[in-house]
């Protein structure tokens, strides 16, 4: 086993924009993989979560699968990081919180514009929606937060490098934004 820091990532109720932004660190990815070993992540398509040093979570908690994945990541990680608006405050998916799940499903699958064969999906493999979308800190303990929709590649780079060096993390003004 290498002595590199082990990192896992997941996207819950998010749009993968934060993962795209992680890739946006561009050629610094080469530097990053010298420092860390990626475990379960959509980037390498590994599906099993092993114990890791750092778990980076994008997206809020919108369904039962999100809860399960998030709790599993929490169990297996020393440091858990909420990345992006959705993980931090529910983000755009949380705009459905003004409506009941029934209203949301009917709007999407029955009354929505252009819906053919209207029917609410009920396959047992589809995770059930929660009544509301929650930020991840309402479900598990979170050590670090990195806001943005998404945070820029530079902000992610600042965060990761300073975290890896064990320093208190300071961002330049333009790297912290909520949108």
């Amino acid at each position, binding site marked *: 086993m290498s002595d590199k820091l082990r990192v896992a990532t997941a996207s819950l109720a998010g749009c993968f924009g934060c993962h795209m932004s992680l890739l946006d660190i561009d050629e610094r990815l080469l530097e990053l993989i010298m420092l860390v070993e990626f475990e379960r992540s959509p980037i390498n398509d590994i599906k099993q979560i092993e114990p890791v040093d750092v778990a980076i979570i994008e997206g809020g908690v919108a369904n039962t699968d999100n809860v399960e994945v998030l709790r599993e990541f929490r169990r297996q990680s020393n440091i858990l990081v909420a990345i992006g608006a959705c993980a931090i405050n529910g983000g*755009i998916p949380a705009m459905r919180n003004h409506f009941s799940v029934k209203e949301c499903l009917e709007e999407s699958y029955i009354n929505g514009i252009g819906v053919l064969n209207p029917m609410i999906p009920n396959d047992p493999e589809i995770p059930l929606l929660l009544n509301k979308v929650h*930020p991840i*800190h*309402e479900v598990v303990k979170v050590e670090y937060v990195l806001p943005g929709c998404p945070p820029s590649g530079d902000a992610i780079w600042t965060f990761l490098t300073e975290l890896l060096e064990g320093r208190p993390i300071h961002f330049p*003004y333009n790297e912290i*934004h909520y*949108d």
Partner: protein
Amino acid sequence: MTQCHFFIDGKDIPFHPGQTIMDAAMTAGIYIPHLCHNPDYEPTGSCRLCLVKLNGRYVSACTRPAQAGGKVENQSEEINQQRKTLLQMLFVEGNHQCPGCEKSGRCQLQAVAYYVGMLSPYFTHFYPNRQLDASHPEMMLDFNRCILCGLCVRASHDGDKKDIFAISGRGIKSHLVINSPSGKLGDSHFNAHDLAASVCPVGVFLPKHKGYEVPIGQRLYDRQPISQVGDVAGQNKPAGRS
């Protein structure tokens, strides 16, 4: 007129009797974070963001008259932490989804939160259910972002002399109401050029037929903090009005 002095973080600040700590600080170019304060209107001290310590006691800078020789603490870790907590409570009380808000980038709530270093809202979100009012042909009101600063109320009363807005209810049920037969903006005497439309520090007043006009990276608070750029209301002032 007599000129007296007091101190903000050890710096000598001149003031005229009757000026508040905020007035004197603004004149001297010292930034004290605030949301409900606008120098054109009577201060109300409702948002509490401008809390400072005067001779060791917490006061709101916008309502407290400056006193000769007073020692004001504005920048300290303790005060910054209090302001951060106040902001976090404001964020979870409303629905502040910055990525979907037209005011993002030129929102004072957001800018002050950047200034104090707020990274997350920390508390449990309320996700209150608030309706929009899109009844006016030129202006939409999104109450999801209202922080009850009362600036539109004051601007409509003192500036426009129209009394279109008021805050109704108590405690957590306080909310902005509109003075019209239906309670809708479209039925009121509101005009999109009213002063009340230009003072909102958050994204309640949204002009229709345009949005997201300034690209990300070029918006008011994208490059420089609010302590350098100033309030959003200052940028909104209609030409010819001081």
